[in-house]
Structures are given as C-alpha cells and as structure tokens.
C-alpha cells in the first residue's frame, strides 16, 4: 500500500461534497436537538404529572435504544404509515431526536443546579416568572451546561457516518463510494479521519472560547 497524492487530489472534490452534507446534518441536527431538548426538559419539569411522566418515558425510550435502529425506523418503517421523508431529513430528525434527549438531561441538570434560594429571592423581590427565568435562572444555568452540550455536539458530529446506512451521501458514504470504484481504502478513509479530526479540533477551540466567554457570569 502506497500513499498516492495524485489520487488524493482527484478524490478531494467528491469528499468535500460529502463533508458539506455531514456539516449540514450536524448543524441542523444540533439545532433540532437544542429545541427538542428544551421542550423535553420543560415538559418534564413543569408539565402536569401525567404529561411529565409520559415525557420521561419517551426520553428514556429514545436514550435507551441505538441511534442506528431509530434511523432505520424513521427511514424504512415510517413510509408504511405514509410518512416518507427524504434521506437527509430523516437523518437530521434521527440525530436531533436522539441528541435532544441527551440535551434535555443537560438542561434539567443545569436548571436544577440553580440554588433554591435564588428562586425564593426572585419571588421575594417580586419578579415575574418571565423575569425570574431570563434574569435569574438561565444566566446561572446556561454556562455550566455549555461544556456538556459541546461534548454532545462533537459526539453527534462523529456519529453522522451512521447516516450512510440510510443512503445519505455524507462524507463516509462518499469515501466508500470512491473506494468502491478505485479499490483503494487507504486514501479515502484516511481523509475522512483527517476531515473529522480537523472539524472536531475547530469545534473544540470554538467551544473553549464560548466557555471562557460565559464563565465570568458564573462568578459574578
């Protein structure tokens, strides 16, 4: 096996096409996860008991089953009841739903970590619920959440190759398709690894920055 730079340049445009899809899936998946996670967290904490219980069950169910199984379900089983999603959308929903449940736990932990006294003080100073959340609770709850959410973001990014199982032509699938016609794995797979590493490192730096940016609030 020899490393062939010419081959690397030849396959680069194809892989970059795949990388775009991977990033798209990650960005939309993360956005969806953030929203779904918040909905789950709020439902679990504030909704009436039966709804909160049901939500807890749903969250546990999604957390307790593999993402790959969920993707197959969304892609191959939902069409039986008339819901036919394009492959990429199915993938984004799968990622968003799965990581949304993780995010929900992070939100919940962050909010519950705000000392009781803060809530009581807010009440004592006659703040409305809205003011309490926006000015007292969330500013203290969000910064400690960031590292945990960041970890999930990076984990999700690294799970996107699973989408190749439901025919999304993302980075891994493009690399496989290249390997299929060239009979060479060394360059495509190495490049996939390198792309993922680069993107992960960039996100780590960015998230460090976010942490720094938000940490002073914590010490206020």
């Amino acid at each position, binding site marked *: 096996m020899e490393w062939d730079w010419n081959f690397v340049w030849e396959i680069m445009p194809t892989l970059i096409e795949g990388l775009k899809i991977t990033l798209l899936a990650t960005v939309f998946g993360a956005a969806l996860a953030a929203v779904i996670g918040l909905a789950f967290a709020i439902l679990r904490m504030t909704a009436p008991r039966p709804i909160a219980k049901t939500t807890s069950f749903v969250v546990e169910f999604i957390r307790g089953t593999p993402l790959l199984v969920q993707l197959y379900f969304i892609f191959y089983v939902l069409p039986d009841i008339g819901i*036919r999603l394009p492959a990429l959308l199915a993938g984004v929903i799968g990622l968003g739903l799965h990581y949304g449940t993780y995010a929900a736990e992070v939100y919940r932990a962050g909010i519950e970590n705000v000392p009781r006294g803060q809530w009581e003080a807010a009440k004592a100073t006659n703040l409305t619920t809205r003011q309490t959340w926006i000015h007292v609770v969330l500013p203290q709850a969000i910064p400690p959440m960031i590292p945990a959410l960041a970890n999930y973001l990076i984990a999700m990014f690294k799970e996107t190759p699973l989408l190749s199982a439901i*025919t999304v032509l993302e980075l891994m699938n493009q690399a496989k398709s290249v390997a299929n*016609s060239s*009979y060479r794995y060394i360059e495509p797979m190495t490049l996939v690894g390198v792309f993922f590493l680069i993107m992960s490192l960039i996100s780590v730096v960015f998230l460090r920055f976010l942490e720094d940016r938000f940490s002073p609030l914590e010490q206020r």
Partner: protein
Amino acid sequence: MKNTHFLTMLAGTATLMAVFAGPPAFAADGKLEQLKTQGFARVAIANEPPFTAVAADGKVSGAAPDVAREIFKRLGVADIVASISEYGAMIPGLQAGRHDVITAGLFMKPERCAAVAYSQPILCDAEAFALKKGNPLKLQSYKDIADNPDAKIGAPGGGTEEKLALEAGVPRDRVIVVPDGQSGLKMLQDGRIDAYSLPVLSINDLVSKAKDPEIEVVAPVQGAPVYCDGAAFKKGDEALRDAFDVELAKLKESGDFAKIIEPYGFSAKAAMSTTREKLCAAK
C-alpha cells in the same frame, strides 16, 4: 506487501514440507497447499440469490459458492467459509487478504480485470430493472434514467449496476446506493427510487419472493450487454487461479457444471461460449 507475500510463500512451503515430509513438488503452489492444510478457503459472497445465498441456518448456497465449493473439493480443499460483504468492499478485501477468492457474481469488467485475477467465466446474466407497475417513467435503459431528471435508480454500492448507471451519465445524486435487496425493494415500494437495478435472475428472485403486484420487471435492460462473473483471485495468486481454471474446464466438459448452475436458472452454455480474455477486453 512484498513481505506478506514472502511470508505466505514461506509458510506455504514450510507446511508443505511438514505435510509430505519430502521434497516439495510445486513450491509455486504455496497458496493452494496452504488452503489444503487449513482445510478451507475463505470466499466473499453477497447474499444476492441466486448468485449467492445464505439460508436461515447459515448454510451458504447460491450458484457461485456451489461451483467454487465443488472445484475446491476437487483441488483438495475440503470446504469453503463464506463472509458476506458489499460488492464494493470485495476487491479491497481480497487485496487486504481478508478472503482468498470472490465468488459473488462480481461481473468481469476491464477495470476489475486489472485489479484481480479472474478465473474463466462461470455465471452469465443480463441486467434488469424492478420498477412500479406500468413503468410510469418509461425506463428501458440506464440512458433513459440519465435523461429523466426525476428518475432515481437504486443499485448495490460498488456493483456493476451502479457503475453502469454512472457511466450512462446518471448524476451521482440520482444513483442511490442500496445496501441489500430487501432495502431496495422497500425503497422502490415507498417511492424513494424509481428503478432498482440488479441482474435479471436476482431481480426475478427478489420480485417473486416479494409477491407484490405493484412491482414489475424490465429485463433485459436495453443497451447493457450480458456480463459474466468468474472467481476472482488476488493478483499474485495466479498459480491458484490456473489450478482453479483447470478444474473448472473439466467441470464444464463433464456436464457437472450445468448440473450445478442450471437449477439456479443460469445458462451453462452462455458461460462456455465466452472467455475471460473476451470479457476483460470488452468495453
């Protein structure tokens, strides 16, 4: 690469000496001797009946492994052990030494002939489409799919059909890589793809098992010639390949060849009327 080969040879020669305790007869046949000692050959298959099939109890059948099993038996290798692989991963897997031979209906095409050492032709078949009843998009050839901007085709990743579709000019985003026959059928039923392409016998097998009145078959696909597969060996294992060819020729002559493959629906005559040289040269 060179080192492994040397080691294989060394191991082969060593086993040979150990087994016969005499002067090694054919040092060049190291690979075959190694397989004999080991008692089995590792083959790559795809689980695409009738070319290759794995029964519920794990027994490997299908025309390609059956022929290979018989020939290896005659060569003195007791059995074959199969591993299921994607078409695209077979040749890289062969080169990486994960299996000894590919017996999966991997049709001979010039670029594949350049990558592996094929035996003489074994199974021949034309290409077919499975599509929705009535063929709403009027798809008769890969070219038709290329010309219709709404038509999507499903094909196994790294399979002949994927390559044919791409060669006909179907853009990459309309060639959907389908992991297995069942998924392909499901995607067709769900309307995710408009045509699912496999060899004629595979499509017929799949469609007859599905028993779905909404699916019909176009066979053969216009403009796609009949292709033949062969057992594919690693470059460098030509000695083994040649030994395989000798037994294959005998098998064809004796009529046992037809007895093995014809129940599966393959034509022995088609395989016997062409040669590797012709198929590998064909464009």
